[in-house]
């Protein structure tokens, strides 16, 4: 049992392949309450998208090996029957995908796809469902929804498609909404519109929202809490303020240093992380980040031998790092932060 609305405990999702076992998610835990927004940040292969599909139970029945617990509103989903999870899917929890053009079926009208989503979980006539679809399209800001309900996805612009996608995800008033890179495929002005829309909708629906993205700007715009993933594990978790103002993990520092920012004076050089994200088949021993870590030498040789634990540093701010807390803070204050803000 869990008293939290969403409580993920030690979730592991592994895929056996010909080349070896891919540990896409490897012991992930986090909690989320209704009305709150969690941002999950990471690079490609960090396991963030696999996690979201795992919560929805979309890996069930496939080749994936899943262990751990996912508690949603008092129900455990990992051990639940696929049929039960299917009934929750689209109703209690739903998802918004990255590329609305490929995520919507090209042969069915937008309306038909929303109607279908609604009628899976609600015994209503087509007419009622259609009315509902029109309402939803209007609600997500699509002009002339009565007319556009019969349009095909390709007849929509990118922004409209993402609005329709959101309308589809909202069709059964989900309590948990997962948005996987919801704005990555969109132009910046449209992205701003969609982010606004999602913020408004979340307030109205009081759903729990998980937003998965690689874009720190998007996370900062929406999230209450942020989970930074690396190599299938959470490496830092905290409030948005924790992550942006007092980040304690070298990887988070690297992410911040890698981004050119409009809100500050342009730095002379970006401060990238060396190397590339790890292969999930051969995750480096010890701390998965250590081959790319600039401070690996300061861990007293533990970096490549021991997997660090996710430890609370203060007030719900968790970090998975061998560096002592004081040293992390000192490095942030003296070596990282000044460089990010240098003129």
């Amino acid at each position, binding site marked *: 049992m869990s008293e939290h609305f969403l409580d993920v405990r030690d979730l592991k999702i592994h895929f056996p392949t010909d080349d070896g076992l891919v540990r896409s998610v490897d012991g992930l835990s986090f909690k989320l309450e209704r009305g709150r927004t969690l941002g999950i940040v990471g*690079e*490609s292969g960090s396991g963030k998208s696999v996690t979201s599909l795992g919560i929805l139970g979309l890996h069930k029945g496939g080749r994936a090996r899943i262990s751990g617990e996912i508690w949603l509103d008092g129900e455990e989903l990992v051990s639940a029957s696929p049929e039960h999870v299917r009934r929750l899917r689209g109703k209690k929890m739903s998802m918004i995908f990255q590329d609305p053009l490929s995520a919507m079926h090209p042969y069915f009208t937008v309306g038909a796809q929303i109607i279908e989503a609604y009628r899976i979980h609600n015994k209503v006539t087509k007419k009622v469902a259609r009315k509902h679809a029109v309402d939803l399209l209007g609600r997500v800001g699509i002009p002339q929804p009565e007319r556009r309900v019969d349009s095909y996805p390709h007849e929509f*612009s*990118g*922004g*409209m498609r993402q609005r329709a996608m959101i309308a589809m995800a909202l069709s059964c008033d989900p309590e948990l909404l997962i948005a996987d890179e919801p704005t990555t495929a969109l*132009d*910046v*002005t*449209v*992205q*701003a*519109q969609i*982010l*606004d829309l999602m913020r408004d909708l979340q307030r109205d629906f009081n759903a729990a929202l998980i937003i998965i993205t*690689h*874009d*720190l*700007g*998007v*996370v*900062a*715009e929406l*999230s209450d809490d942020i989970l930074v993933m690396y190599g299938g594990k959470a490496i830092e978790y905290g409030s*948005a*303020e924790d992550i*942006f*103002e007092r980040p304690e993990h070298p990887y988070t520092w*690297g*992410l*911040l*240093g*890698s*981004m*050119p*920012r*409009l*809100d500050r004076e*342009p*730095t002379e*050089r*970006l*401060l*990238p*992380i*060396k190397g*590339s*994200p790890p292969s999930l088949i051969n995750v480096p021993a010890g701390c998965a980040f250590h081959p*790319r870590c600039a401070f690996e030498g300061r861990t007293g040789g533990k970096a490549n031998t021991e997997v660090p634990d996710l430890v609370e540093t203060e007030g719900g701010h968790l970090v998975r790092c061998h560096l002592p807390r004081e040293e992390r803070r000192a490095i942030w204050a003296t070596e990282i932060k000044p460089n990010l803000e240098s003129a």
Partner: protein
Amino acid sequence: MTEPLLSVQGLEKHFPVTKGLLQRQVGAVKAVDGVSFDVRKGETLGLVGESGCGKTTTGRLITRLIEPTGGKVIFEGHDITHMSQGKIRPLRRDMQMIFQDPYSSLNPRHTVGAIVGAPFKIQGVHTEQGVKKAVQDILALVGLNPEHYNRYPHEFSGGQRQRIGIARTLALKPKLIIADEPVSALDVSIQAQVVNLLEDLQNELDLTYLVIAHDLSVVRHISDRVAVMYLGKIVELADRKGLYESPMHPYTNALLSAVPIPDPKGKAGRERIRLQGDVPSPLNPPPACRFHTRCWKAQEICKTEEPPLLQLAPGHQVACHFPENAPALAEPEVAAQT
């Protein structure tokens, strides 16, 4: 001011639209519609805009990957707009392109040595040893392990592949590099590596860049001057500081304001401009000022008269009837109406 390395004058690309039994031309997609700018030796010009604004088409027109329907492209004093493929070939070496997708632009069946080495053979480095040495030097230059000479593209990560692409480009010793979304397919941490690499190479090899991108932050970071495109036209062209700190065109302003800021504290304090709707179709662009359908400042004149691209401050050109942040004397009309 130095002689521009590349000068683009009134460049146009119209794709015909036909209809009916006889395939009469009923219109044209004006993908690029009268674009003019110079790129000076040693500088980086950023070309930004949303999808469909014509920035990528502009890049391809300059490199003659597609044929322009109007205007001129002058490179190093040669008018290459309609130069034959034979004549243009030597100039092509001086003007190279880096593409967005590092996966598809490398031949999977060739080793890195072969990919990067091909240009050397063209240039007359004949000995096997000589080519290998030259390739390894370049691999080191772009931050790849020279020992990986014999590996195939699939053995590299995305960022490394983009480095291979850059190495291949550099092997021809170009003067101008046109980079079309060079980092948008890469992870954040890798983006920064490649951006830094491009900057380092510019300093070391005295390169000139035309960077085409949609990411305003990256463009700001890398560019000396920036041109903003909207529906086939340049709406604003200025140096970096001028454009990002005092944008004159409402569209530029809206773009900048739309970029999410990675600062949870700042989000409450920022003044936001939210544009309505999407970019109109380039098949039927709005008349006169193309931005007027989404512009909160638009007036009647914007629907009837196309604003010319005028220099309103030193090095700062803008095409707007009601520019913001403009020096008052430059446009008395505007003051009267505000």
